[in-house]
């Protein structure tokens, strides 16, 4: 038996999605472990990294910015440059953008995850949304199982998740490089910009961006909370079809593809 990919889920003080992130990692067929921010020794030996959601360092100054200055991030960045996959979810995505790993064209922060613009609830907003996968990818490590334009339900849970940039050409560049991985959409895949389809006012409905190589992805919605059918709400037909059938409820929901894809990527490219 070849060794399973081994993934570190990094816990910075204040994160709170490390457990469910680890569960999704394990269920996808990888090994993994929650690694505290101060357990830096040997962290480079892991095959991939998940930076989970939460409020690392209390989101002091700006969401994700202090975590991105934590020494462990330099190691993660180095390993990412060696091709290892890094998945930043929600607060983890904010840290990746602050570090500049995503979009990663200039090795500095080129975008920002700004406070939501949401006509219904100001500040933190938790709700189910849909995202649409890419038409074609740049070999992104997290969409190997995603069908063309596939629509995936996931919850969002953030106050600062609006992808913006003041570099007018950046969005075009990202589109050209196929770095825009997931966009907020309706159930039917329409990427209309109005609320509630776009829940935070992100430019071009951006929900997830990867770096140019495709091995680092910063995603604002939570795939780890949408990886099993039982986690889906009754607005998703798959959930209603599965009610009363425990095997069906425990089975994978579409967002699990992201973790399965990470596994496949490591198996093919890293180990």
């Amino acid at each position, binding site marked *: 038996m070849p060794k399973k990919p081994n993934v570190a889920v990094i816990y910075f003080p204040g994160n*709170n999605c490390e457990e469910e992130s680890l569960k999704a990692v394990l269920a996808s067929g990888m090994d993994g472990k929650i690694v505290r921010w101060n357990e830096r020794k040997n962290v480079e030996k892991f095959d991939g990294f998940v930076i989970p959601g*939460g*409020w690392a360092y209390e989101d002091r100054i700006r969401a994700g910015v202090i975590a991105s200055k934590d020494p462990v991030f330099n190691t993660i960045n180095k390993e990412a440059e060696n091709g290892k996959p890094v998945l930043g979810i929600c607060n983890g995505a904010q840290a990746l953008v602050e570090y500049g790993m995503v979009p990663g064209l200039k090795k500095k922060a080129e975008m920002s995850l700004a406070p939501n613009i949401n006509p219904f609830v100001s500040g933190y907003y938790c709700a189910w949304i849909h995202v649409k996968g890419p038409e074609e990818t740049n070999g992104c490590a997290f969409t190997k199982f995603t069908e063309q334009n596939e629509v995936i339900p996931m919850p969002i849970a953030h106050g600062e998740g609006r992808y913006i940039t003041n570099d007018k050409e950046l969005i075009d560049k990202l589109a050209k490089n196929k770095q825009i991985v997931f966009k907020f959409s309706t159930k039917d895949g329409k990427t209309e910009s109005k609320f509630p389809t776009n829940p935070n006012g992100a430019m071009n409905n951006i929900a997830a961006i990867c770096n140019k190589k495709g091995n680092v992805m910063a995603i604002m919605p939570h795939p*780890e909370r949408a990886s099993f059918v039982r986690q889906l709400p009754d607005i998703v037909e798959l959930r*209603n079809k599965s009610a009363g*059938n*425990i095997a069906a409820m425990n089975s994978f929901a579409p967002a699990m593809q992201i973790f399965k894809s990470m596994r496949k990527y490591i198996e093919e490219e890293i180990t």
Partner: protein
Amino acid sequence: MGGVEVDLVDIKAMSDRELSGFLRKNAVSLSVFEAKRVVELIGRNPTLTELYIFNTQWSEHSSYKSSRSILKELLPTKAPNVILGPVEDSGIVELGYIDGERYGIVVSHESHNHPSQVVPYEGAATGVGGILRDVLCMGAKIIATADPLRFGNPNGKDKNRVKYVANEVINGIAGYGDAVGIPNIGGDVYFNDSFDENCLVNVVCLGIVKEKDIIHSFAPESAEGYDIIIVGKATDNSGFGGAAFASLILDEKDRESNRGAVQVPDPFLKNVLIRATYAVFEEARKQGIKLGFKDMGAGGIMCSTSEVCSSSDFGAEIDLSKVNVSMKDLPPYIIANSETQERFTWICPSDFTKTLLKIYNKDFELPNISLGAGAFVIGKVTAEQDYVLRHNNQIVCNVPINAITEGIRHERIKEAPRRDFKEPILKEPKDCNKALLSVLRHPNVASKAKAYKHYDTSVMGNAVISSGYADAGVLKVDNSSYGVALKTDCNPRYCRIDPYWGAVNAVAESMRNVAAVGATPSALTDCLNYGNPENQEAFYDFYEGVRGIADAAKHLRYKGTKFPMPFISGNVSFYNESSSGKAVDPSPVIACVGVLKDYSKAITMKIKKEGSTLFLIGKRKDELGGSVYYDVNDEIGAIVPIIDFESERNMTSAVVDAIDSNLLLSCHDVSDGGLATTISEMILGGDADGRIGAEINLDFTDLRTDKALFSESSGFVFEVDNQNLSRLKTLFKFYKIDLVELGKTDGTKLIFNKNNKKIIDLHVDKLKEAWTMGFVEALE
């Protein structure tokens, strides 16, 4: 009596008038009688530190001095599924067996009413913070919270303050719970003018623990010489007198001076503290170490350390100079009594102390997380049953530990107040469409999405049904197929009219809500929010409320047994009244916890299919007192819903069995807003995205049309696939329940027919607009 080494307060030498003045000047809430009782009890004048200790311990909040005897007399607390009744920080009820081991659901239920009225954000946030500690300190994994909230009239005389308080309370709950990362899976919100000057902010928390891993809030056996360790935030002067403050009547003029009694929340530190504590649990279990662990809440270090030691007949010797403080020159009575948040007490064998300190201070770096935070040894458990506090090498407190923890009792007098409520004479409405829309738009009925979408409802990844989608929230339990359901209830207007039947309804509705998702109601908790117990009428209402919840629990029973539904935890909050002395509506807020053996069977309220059949159980009666329909007509009425215990029991059991047999597609109880509201909400679903309508025939009842549509008599409506009709009928026949076939799901409208005439004919978009806007408007 033990000696002390500081000045005494010479109570003996003071006249009553002088004593009263002294107590007021020093912000001691003890009565003159009680202060003199301290002298009698300890056999000498007390030190100032000792006086403050009794002040806190004899507050209503800590001592239950007015309520304890009644609770003990009336409330049923025993049933075969109870693992731990209401004696420690939380109660524990059986979940079931996982891999041969018995597991329990840990439940705690508290109020943070006064702090939330004064500084709503911090008050509500620290309410969440406190309840998490109550559950964690049983050795449990925290899995969920829920918040029952009562606010004033958003269109009344205090509307600006009411809206401010409501919004800030919601933000405070979100700000704390979201950051720690505990899903909020339910709760309820009611508005009415009795809460204008005194909101109610209750909070419920659930945890899961293996029975053999329970950690108790008392020192383990042979703990003599064990270390007393405090862990968490550095002590400051915040919340000094908080427990005493909870037992004062709020006066708007004093709002500023009361602010100091409210604690400061730190969810960031708590996030790390909880994870570090899980690591301590794991290590102690691995090494087979027995520990005592207690929340540090009301009464601070003094209350937590004295109770944890005296419960196992030990004493304690504590050096307050060893307490990590964040302010210079704090006097000993503040260090001892301050209610600084995010702290716990450990009772720890000294050979494990190093490991415990390392986990908090090195592995999780608490001192780097928050200035001065960490775990520190502050004293020892002693065989002599004295409570001794030192400060700067002087003994500042030395009294028998039982004198502190035993508390005080007051016999209160009750006297029934005049209640001259009358049934209104209402004309039958010409336009039932309009009547239904105004009921759906009522803030007590309308969707609470604007509140719970501030809350993290999906964190931890275990929510099977989260807030808003059904009558109760449901979580999957790790490593098992079990589901846990939770719902809170209490209709304040019913209780205003009738404190007994209002209380009965609170229990019945909470059980219905849990049953409506398919869970078997397993245990109850109560948070009893009432006025001033020294007021005989308020105390009468309290007594009637306790009698009501107790009778309901006894008669509604734990499913399939003769045992009552057990109360496993609770809280009493008195002195909830306006500055003019008017008590809030009696509010025995009930939380019901339920268990599903197979979580996958849980169902939501949203209609799932076109062409399926809708049924009603529960007779519609002319009992609209306290109803939303009367309220939209500016009436309150006099006859509240009366629960027929046998029929209620059968209905609830039948619904649980029907869902367990996969016979129902969706289910919703009939309560606020009546039958027409229930069906409207089923059409819309929690996210108001439903597009399947229904056509209902109202000819099954002789009740006047508006009363049939809006009566809040107990019942359920459910949706059944046509292929299951005969199995369904057999099951309900077994329980001797009449099934009323209401009609079919179909189209995109809600239609009610009576005598072949359409009395309601509304497109789902109209229902959606009213139902989604009402609560939003109340908060704006």
